[in-house]
């Protein structure tokens, strides 16, 4: 099972991510959040192996606006809503009781809790600030006049994309699309397969992807 075609979702390419945290910083700026507030978007650096076979991969994560939204299912006051029109998961902070049940349900550790104890998380820049997405009209693509999500806008490597599933699927590699269709990450996010360094170098030489000009921009 995966998202409806017109439902928004995230795409992430770890091969293009340079781990600069620009996405999480820009998210905080867009939503006017304190520097010490928990991040709606986090960048983790995961590593494996030992020298000389050591590898570290930066992973940028936020609420993935899951098609099955486990947080919505457990939320007692119906404060969390998976919107039918665009698939974005929003929070009505006027109903949240701060029970933290959603945090346990979320597979991505996305819910954060502020000083008031209320839940807030990524709303795909549907609105600004905690709870800003609730009650907003249907999300528009940038072509339709909608804002580009801050994390997507400021990602220097073009590693993050967001949009309706049907549009995102046209931009991903064949491998990523195939893996997504097979249920990787339970169909909640599209992630490019990690490439070995040699493979990556070939891609750059061939100009297939990871355009150096893009990276420099």
């Amino acid at each position, binding site marked *: 099972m995966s998202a409806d075609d017109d439902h928004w979702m995230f795409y992430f390419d770890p091969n293009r991510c340079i781990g600069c945290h620009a996405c999480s910083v820009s998210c905080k700026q867009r939503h006017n959040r304190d520097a010490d507030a928990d991040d709606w978007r986090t960048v983790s650096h*995961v590593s494996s192996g030992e020298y000389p076979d050591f590898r570290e991969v930066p992973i940028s994560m936020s609420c993935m606006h899951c098609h099955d939204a486990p947080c919505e299912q457990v939320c007692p*006051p119906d404060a969390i809503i998976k919107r039918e029109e665009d698939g974005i998961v929003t929070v009505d902070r006027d109903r949240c009781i701060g029970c933290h049940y959603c945090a346990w349900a979320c597979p991505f550790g996305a819910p954060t809790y502020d000083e008031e104890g209320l839940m807030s998380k990524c709303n795909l820049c549907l609105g600004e600030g905690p709870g800003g997405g609730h009650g907003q009209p249907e999300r528009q693509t940038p072509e339709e006049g909608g804002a580009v999500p801050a994390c997507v806008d400021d990602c220097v490597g073009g590693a993050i994309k967001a949009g309706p599933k049907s549009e995102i699927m046209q931009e991903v590699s064949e491998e990523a699309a195939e893996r997504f269709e097979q249920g990787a990450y339970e169909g909640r996010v599209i992630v490019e397969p990690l490439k070995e360094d040699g493979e990556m170098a070939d891609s750059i030489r061939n100009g297939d992807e990871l355009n150096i000009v893009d990276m420099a921009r």
Partner: protein
Amino acid sequence: MSTTISVLSAALAAAGNSEVIWHPADYWDLSIPVYLFLAVVAGGAYLTGASACLIRSLRGKGACCLETEIARWGFLVAIAAAAGAGLAVLSHLAVIYRAILFPIYLTNFDSWITIGTWILVLLSLFAVVCLLLQLFGEHAASDEGASLFPRTIVAWVSPVLLETIDGLVDRVRPPMSVFAGLHLLGSLFALGTIYTGFELAIVDTVPLWNDPVIIPALFLTSGVAAGIGATLALTMLFEREIGPVFAGYALTVSLLSAVSLALLYYGWILLAASDAPAAAASYATLTDGWYYVGAWLVVLGFVAPMIIGLVIGLATFADRLSPTLERVGGPALIGSFGLLLVGGLLFRILLLLAAAQNPLVVIG
């Protein structure tokens, strides 16, 4: 922190893959296990009170008997435990008034928190009604017993008030058939406190909790046993003679403790055999340092009432209760019930502290 690191390391080793992202898994404080425990204790105590009323009817006894004393203590413990559970969960919430206005705010009936809130509130209401019917009225006025202390308090506040409540309760006292229906419905809500187990069991991200059979069943058996134990312990503090009624309840606690122990063992085996990294993390936590000591205390909390309840129960029914056993039997039972209460609470605390969420595994 060091525990977290050691847990993490153990889990990473168990997973054989370091490309994982762990989540904090520290979203609840200790008020939640207290809530989860007291809610079922309330259910167990209510069942004790209701069953004592039933036994009294079946034995054709009058209002002034041991069963009435057990019933009153049962409903008292049920109300106290439910109130404690309510306060514990409210203390954890960010916006308390929205929880208090639960009929308006808690609208998601797919959520076990919503379902549980209704069960706990309705159970409390049934327990209050049952207690009032046992505590006031003509029969209670002519009765004696430590469980009547709320009457003393009301009389101290105002003798006229006590007389008014007695009269009111006598006027509204329902016939036996309605009484039976009341106890039956209340007992369903008491059994419904199994919801506390489902609150954890449906959390897919935590393998330690995510078992829709063992966790709810274990929560129910251990909590009900603790509720019966708490009621019996209070009754026995004032009524020391061990008779067939006490023996029957002691055997029930023994059986429930045995079932809890069996479920605990089965759950432990499953946890140890699980391939999930978070299950390995939980297992590593529970077999380390004070957690391990706590885990054995939980086992002791089930073993003690199982053995002591069995010995005293069987000896009583076989009419082989020696004077020595009769003398030490009461304190031994009370002590074992105390251990059961400690073990039941500790079990839930450990479940929370050892909980680890499935890490996000970065697929290569």
